[in-house]
Every structure is written in C-alpha cells, then in structure tokens.
C-alpha cells in the first residue's frame, strides 16, 4: 500500500463551546452537566427476548458497550438513567414495564431497541403490545430484528446527543408535564 491512511480525528468527549483562559473554562451549566451526564449513563437493560441476546453481544468484548460510560448496568430502576427496552413487550408485561418506568427518577431516558419494542414487530397478535410508546414516552427508537450491535450503539449515541443538549429546565417545563400527562404518569 503506497498511501498512508490517517484515521479521522474523533473526539470522544468534545468540549462544549465556551470561554477558555489560563486555568479556567467557562460554559453554560447545562452544557457542562450534559457533558457529564451523557458520558456516564447507567442503563437498565430491560431485556425480554432476542434483542436481549444482541445486547449481551454488545456488552461483550467485541462491541464493548462499557466504553460509552455504561460500565455499571443497573437492574434497579431507582439507580438507572436509561431504560433500554429490548424485546417484545406483551400485554401481560406492560403494567410491569410501566411500573419500572415510574420508579425511575428524573432525568430518565427511554431507548426502544428492536422492532417489537418500537411497534410490535412481526407479532401483530392479540397478546403483544404494538409498541411501548403506547404506555411510556420513548426518546430513541432503534429498528431492526434484532438490530446489530452497531445499531444499538448508534441508538445509545443518539441518546447521548439528546442528553448533552438537554436544557436543565426541560423536566419542569409545561411541555414535558403535558407529555407525561398524556401517558397518565404524574
């Protein structure tokens, strides 16, 4: 090979725009908080079926999920930031999912992984909930059946983008309250 290939410059955690000086850096609070939050999301893997196995592959060494800050998977909703719903949610499971979501503290985000969680998938049957957005608000949908680990990581990167740019006042804003009220969540 004659030409030397230089890899593209990729910043893992780029600094937000701000004012820099000797020994200090000034930016807005929500950008600083967003930077810290997005690189340390603690996911709750709500793995129900086949997408859960692809999540296990994402967590394993080949597609290492921990490098995005999710080293500590939390199975308790009280300690989790990101609810990753992976797999089919049946109508029997819907109240459980709702209860888990309600137990999470703000700020919380929801990632719907796979076709079944996003819209019911190939199972248009009497027993399958046709999409978890019937019961909880979803931030990012990852299509696929099951999505490749790269797609799941792309979904998480999109969540990180949302987290980094979120205003600190969002969770108290009337639009957010109206969104939750439309789902019947206090």
């Amino acid at each position, binding site marked *: 090979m004659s030409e030397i290939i230089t890899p593209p410059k990729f910043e893992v955690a780029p600094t937000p725009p701000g004012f820099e000086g000797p020994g200090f850096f000034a930016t807005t609070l929500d950008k600083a908080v967003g930077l810290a939050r997005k690189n340390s999301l603690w996911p709750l893997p*709500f793995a*129900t*079926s*086949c997408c*859960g*196995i*692809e999540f*296990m*592959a994402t967590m*394993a*060494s*080949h597609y290492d999920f921990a490098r995005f800050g999710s080293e500590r998977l939390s*199975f308790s909703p009280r300690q989790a930031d990101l609810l990753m719903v992976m*797999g*089919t949610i*049946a109508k*029997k*499971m819907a109240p*459980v999912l709702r209860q*888990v979501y309600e137990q999470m503290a703000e700020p919380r985000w929801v990632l719907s992984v796979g076709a079944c969680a996003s819209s019911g998938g*190939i*199972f248009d*049957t*009497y*027993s*399958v909930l046709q999409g978890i957005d019937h019961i909880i608000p979803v931030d990012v949908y990852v299509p696929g*059946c*099951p999505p*490749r680990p790269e797609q799941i990581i792309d979904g998480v990167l999109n969540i990180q983008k949302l987290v980094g740019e979120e205003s600190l006042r969002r969770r108290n804003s009337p639009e957010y309250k109206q969104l939750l009220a439309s789902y019947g969540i206090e």
Partner: protein
Amino acid sequence: MKTTFENTVPTPEKEYSILNLGPTHPATHGIFQNVLKMDGEIIVDAEPTIGYIHRAFEKLAEHKPFYQITPITDRMNYCSSPINNMGWHMTVEKLIGAELPKRVEYMRVIVMELARIADHIICNSVIGVDTGAMTGFLYVFQWREFIYEIYEELCGARLTTNVGRIGGFERDFSETAWRKIDHLLKELPAGLKEFENLLVRNRIFMDRTINCGPISAERALQYSFSGPNLRAAGVDYDVRVMNPYSSYQDFEFDIPVGTNGDTYDRFMVRQEEMWQSLSIIRQAIDKMNKLEDKKSFHADIPSFYLPPKEDVYNNMEALIYHFKIVMGETDVPKGEVYHCVEGGNGELGFYLISDGGRQPFRLHFRRPCYIYYQAYPEMIKGSFLSDAVLTMSSMNVIAGELDA
C-alpha cells in the same frame, strides 16, 4: 395475586415470608416470575408465572404460508435459531414427502451443530456469570461472535437466522464460509479449553454448583424432560440417536450423561456436548469431501423451492412455478405430521395439521423449555435463594421458547 400453596402444611410456630422473584430480575434470563414462600433463606415452595412474552406463535402460524413460518420458529429458542429453522423445514418436507440429497443433509448437520455450540456457549457462560465469574462470559462470547460471522456468510443474519428453505438452502456455502468454519474448528478447541480451565475443576464453582437443584432420573422422566437437563439426570435420550433425521445415523458421537441431575452435571453435559458437536462438524466436512455430488444445495421439488431468478426471467416453466409458489397455488398434501429434532434444550417437536391450503390448519410446537420448567418448584424446594437462581440459569430456560 392468589397463590396456591396448598401442598405445604404450615407448622404453627413458623411464619413464612413471601418473596417475589419478579418478572424483571437480573438473575432471570428472560421474564418469568416466581413467587417464593420462604422460611428465612430456605425456599419452601414456589409458584411460577409465565406468559410475559406470549406472542401467540401457534395462532400466528395459522395465518402465514409455510415459508413465512420460518422467521417465527427463529424466535422460539433464539440462542440456537438454525436448529428451529431446520426442524420446521424437515417437518414440511416430511409432509410433502421430499427426499433430500446427502450433501444437503450434511450441510444441515453442520449448521445445526454450530447452533448447538452457540447455545451451549451462552448457557455455560451465563451459569458462570450467575456464580460470579464474569470472565468466562467475556472470553467465550468472542467465539459466539465468530459463529455469528459464519451465519452471516450463510444467510445474512446474526441471531434470528431464517436460514435454509423448504428443501435445502437458498445458496451454497461460499468459500468464505468454509474458510471461517475451518478457522473455528482450529481455534475453538483452545478457547473451550481456556473456559474449562476457569470453571470445571474450580473449587468455588464446584462447591457452588454440586447438589444445587438436583432432580432424579425418574422424576425427570415423569416431567418429560429432554435434552441436556435429562441427560444430566442420567437418561441417555437423544433424538439424534433415537429417531435420527438428516443423516445423523451416519455420524459417530457420544452422548454425555450425568449422574445427579444437579447444576454441575448440567454444566458438564453441555460442555462435553460442545466437544461432541465439534467432532460431528469435522466428520460432516470429511463426509462431504468424499461425496461425488459437490454442488447440490437443495432438493428437486419445484413446487416448493423457488427457482433461481435467472430462470424465472428467461424460462416460462420457472416463471409459472415461481408464481404458483408465491401465490400459494401449489398442491399441499392434506394430513398431519409430527417431526422432532434435538434442539439446544431437548426434543423440539412440530405437530402440523395441513388441510391442503396455503397455511397450516394447526401448528403446535412441542417446546422443551415449557415442559421441563414445570419441575422447577420441585427442584428448588429446600434450597437457598441463590441456588434457586443458579438452577434456573443452568436449566437454560429461554423465555421465547417458554411462552411462544
């Protein structure tokens, strides 16, 4: 929730506490609930609730043509989906009376044994994770990634493969696929040995898993166990030997059998089965090299196997067959057929009633997980909570197969 604990007689001085090992629990791989009646740390009784991922496969199959049911069978035991696919195709081939060339059957054997290795990799590494040994899981999953790469060469998908067609395969194994299979056969033994050195004679693992969740052979047979769980209890029932299909009678392999039916035996049986599967794959490759037929990859059943696209565009007969197959105008025989294969968890059976139409009239899946999970309360009675968690993961209960 009303529970039925009528079988246990409460003594007046003891008070039992009820613990909900609920549907979302890190230790249950899949969603099923167990309401445990506990005397301190000892489990006195358990009541399982399943159905949290019931997707109505049997009803869905009545509305899909035969070739569209393969993706549904994928999602039953999704850790080893090629076995489900092949089992379904063999059921339909039994119904229509199709004869497959030997080469296709050997190719099927290779795919099914790869799937069996993949399934046992997950089960054994997850038993390790449940005892606290995360290392095994991380190391051994790279072999599962390798098997995923082989599946991608064969059919394009990693996990839910939809591999094969009624009558064979959609394309021959490519050069890359053969190269990858050879690479796996060369490298996997070292990887498996590494995993074994971590856990098999590990004092902590043995103390944890021996006598954890035992079941006797007699009880296991009464509960219609099959697969590695039954073989760990001491009964050497393997569908590949009892009712051979897809030329398994041409292969020589051992059936590993345990003695106590506890978690350690289940782990060891699965470990040994992986070695046997590697040997079967090697034998299959040797046999395929000795066959004269080096290029057929499907049976000659034009009414069920789609003709290649070049023929469809140039040849009138192929166009007519293509039309008939896709629009459902082929003559499907009426009748009922039952075919079983040795899945990752045991005897996976398909009971198909066909009424001559495009879709099955009734399709019932004999799911091994569903049948042997009934014995779980009996297996954990009298053991600690942590042993109950370990027993569940060693039984390899896969929620997709449990609920269908």
